[in-house]
């Protein structure tokens, strides 16, 4: 019931249009990752949902109620800020219990619920710590506990893991995901990192230039981006310019015999590494320019007649080798330029 809906929201700061007619729905209990580059307006959208900013036009609905003009302190939406924004003058318990105190929860119950919230984020016994003494990961957990303690139905996270180092980030990512499933809250997490978006979200909404470019499951958005811009944002590298011709798409790799659906004219073509098969008599002639490992998998960057492509490397390849590749048309994805 308490799904979150944003309808036709636009927002401009002076002459700069930040959001331009955004529509978005998040189902009750699900997690949406709002993915966008910096400056795409994703943080502004989050602030509008939280009530910290007013949309110029459009509306925000929580559980069927329109809340567009309801001030932040009466929305009951939990927010985890990018820089945590822990109150420096309160200890951890004071921070986590703040929302409960505002809600008039009495001291005894407050301390129980603070203890519970800290337990949920794995920081039992941290009640009397000074926020200044916490590590980045601990501070992030306290910020999360603070947002969760009043038991909001909707929680918003602004770049929740941006301040943390890689390892901590991946560990917290997994924890966050299972925590949200367990608590059955509706979550919107803003991020610029496709890995983070994919790990956190049941669905990903891609925000580009103030508008939603694509919404879908992580699998859909990453494997089948709707445009070259989205493909770039989700981390796809082998994106070529193409043109729809008789029998397929013409690209720098030749005419690829793929199903173009209803696409016409100039298109973008995604040829993922998995669709590039090394074959001794392959049509695509290329030279290995570099070898690297991505998450432990060997990847070769090859130059195919001026086009740089990522290819899954074979163990015997060395820089300077000439390799021939075949394109598997079934793995190629055609999208808007």
């Amino acid at each position, binding site marked *: 019931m308490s799904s979150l809906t944003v309808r036709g929201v636009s927002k401009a700061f002076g002459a700069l249009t930040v959001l331009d007619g955004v529509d978005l729905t998040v189902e009750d209990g699900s997690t949406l990752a709002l993915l966008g580059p910096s400056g795409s307006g994703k943080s502004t959208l989050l602030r509008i949902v*939280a*009530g*910290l900013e007013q949309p110029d036009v459009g509306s925000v609905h929580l559980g069927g109620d329109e809340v567009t003009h309801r*001030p932040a*302190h009466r929305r009951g939406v939990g927010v985890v*800020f990018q*820089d945590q924004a822990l109150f420096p003058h309160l200890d951890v318990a004071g921070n986590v219990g703040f929302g409960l105190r505002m809600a008039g929860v009495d001291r005894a119950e407050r301390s129980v619920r603070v203890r519970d919230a800290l337990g949920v984020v794995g920081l039992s016994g941290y009640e009397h710590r000074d926020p200044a003494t916490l590590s980045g990961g601990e501070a992030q957990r306290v910020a999360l506990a603070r947002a969760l303690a009043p038991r909001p139905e909707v929680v918003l996270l602004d770049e929740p893991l941006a301040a943390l180092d890689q390892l901590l980030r991946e560990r917290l990512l997994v924890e966050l995901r299972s925590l949200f499933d367990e608590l059955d809250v509706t979550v919107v997490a803003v991020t610029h990192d496709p890995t983070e978006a994919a790990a956190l979200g049941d669905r990903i909404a891609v925000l580009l230039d103030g508008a939603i470019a694509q919404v879908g499951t992580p699998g859909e958005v990453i494997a089948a981006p709707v445009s070259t811009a989205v493909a770039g944002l989700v981390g796809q590298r082998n994106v070529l310019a193409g043109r729809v011709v008789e029998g397929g798409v013409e690209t720098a790799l030749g005419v690829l015999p793929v199903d173009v659906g209803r696409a016409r004219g100039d298109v973008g073509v995604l040829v993922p590494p998995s669709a590039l098969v090394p074959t001794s008599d392959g049509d695509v002639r290329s030279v290995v320019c570099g070898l690297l490992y991505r998450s432990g998998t060997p990847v070769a960057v090859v130059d195919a007649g001026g086009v740089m492509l990522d290819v899954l490397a074979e163990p015997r390849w060395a820089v300077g080798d000439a390799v021939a590749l075949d394109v598997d048309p079934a793995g190629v994805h055609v999208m808007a330029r």
Partner: protein
Amino acid sequence: MNTAERTGRAPRAVTAAAFAVPVAFLGVFFAVPVATLISTGLRAGGRWDLGAVGEVLTSPTTRSVAWFTLWQAVLSTAVTVVAALPAAWLIGRIRFPGRSLLVAALIVPFVLPTVVVGTAFLAVLGPDGPVAALGGVVGFDVDLRRTATAVILAHVFFNYAVVARTVGATWMAVDPAAEDAARTLGADRWTTFRTVTLPQLRPALAGAASIVFLFTFTSFGVVKILGGPRIATIEVEIHRLTTQLLDLRTASVLSLLQLVAVIAALALYRRAGARRGSARTRAGRSVLHRPAGAEHWGVAATIASAALLVGVPIATLVWRSFDTAGGPGLGYYRALGSTGRGSALFVPPAEAVRNSLVIGAAAATTALVVGGLAAVGLHRLGGRARGVADSSFMLPLGVSAVTVGFGFLIALDEPPLDLRTSPLLIPAAQAVIAIPFVVRTLLPALDAVPARLREAAAALGAPPHRVWWEVDARLLRRPALGALGFAYAISLGEFGATVFIARADAPTVPVAIFRALSQPGALNVGQAMALSTVLLALTAAVMLLVDRVGDARVGGF
């Protein structure tokens, strides 16, 4: 529901309400007295007598006073900046034992009453002082009293901390990595300082220098005591004209002249301030390092010169207060309890101490409330309006305290504002002078409260007034305590305005010191020294308390 409430921000009405009190207060106790004094002087027979302006400005006396005021201020400022720069480096870069103590001790001269500073330098430079003793060793008869040198030395002593603390804080914010980069690119230490460090310090230097210029240009107590009858700043001349010659006409023109100079200095300060954000602060990591190699000498020389400059006058003052005719003893202090024979004072000086403490409490509380509201209002303002309003609240810093004091006498003497006999008159005048310091302490603190914390509180269900109470008020507690203590110290030492409005039977300590000094006799001088030492101790105690419980950043510009 209006826009402001929707976004959870306090409405514009709050800004207006916050400004109402300081505007009304400064209107009644600053603008009206100053305007009344000036218009009284410049109106003859119900008509404006603007011929007086040209007449006064071209008179040789005015020109010589204005010239002295200007060059001593310029020279004082230059010497202060050069003298304090090493201390700024020490504060901004070096970690050494006793660092925080030195930083705290440096502020003491700045809050010392001008009268005490004058008295201390009288003791240092007089025939019985260490300078004369040193001169005697090499066979010179040195008496620097009643000289411009004495005035400038005292000004350096007085303002050393303004430059050292303000520039030092900025120095700390200059990223040493940029200096390291310059070194690796082939710049020697001096070139690095000149091309990398100095440009980043320039706004702070300009800001501090304009404030020092402001203080020395309008200097009163120091010049009054050290300058004698021949050396006078505009401020001293205004005092002489109004109290001795009753020449309001000339005094008004001089007040205007000073006002123009003050506004120019404030404009310069604001321009410097516009670029003050240029030094980039690095979060977290400390930029302080232990001295290495030749730096040891720099540290030692800086500490020694600071100790000499700040320590010798204070030590001499304290020594002289015990140095009675019959050898070292508490004679002068004992005499403070009575009006006694040979004493110039109408009331026992101990009572002046009591007066000062009570008046200080009232003045500091008033300044905190009024200045605090002004800071809240300024914090909510944006753009040009803020710049103009900010400068207006700084104005009392430079407008002649004598003008304010004398303006009180002639403006607040008839209903509905007949306040001449009100016990609140002195606290009000002193609060006017302390308000700029309160604003300068609280406004940066308010600006520094991260907007995110307010948003976090709102998102957690705190309505606007609770956001203010739970976040702003809590984070401002220490700066507010600091501002309160600072205002108290300023009130304890205020002389220029108080000397006009203090009743003869109820002097404050600085007024009592001045009265004692203006009478002949060893007992009077000794009592002045003792009373100055008492005031010194009181002020130092207040400032140490400020450093302990309050925010150590007070007094930076």
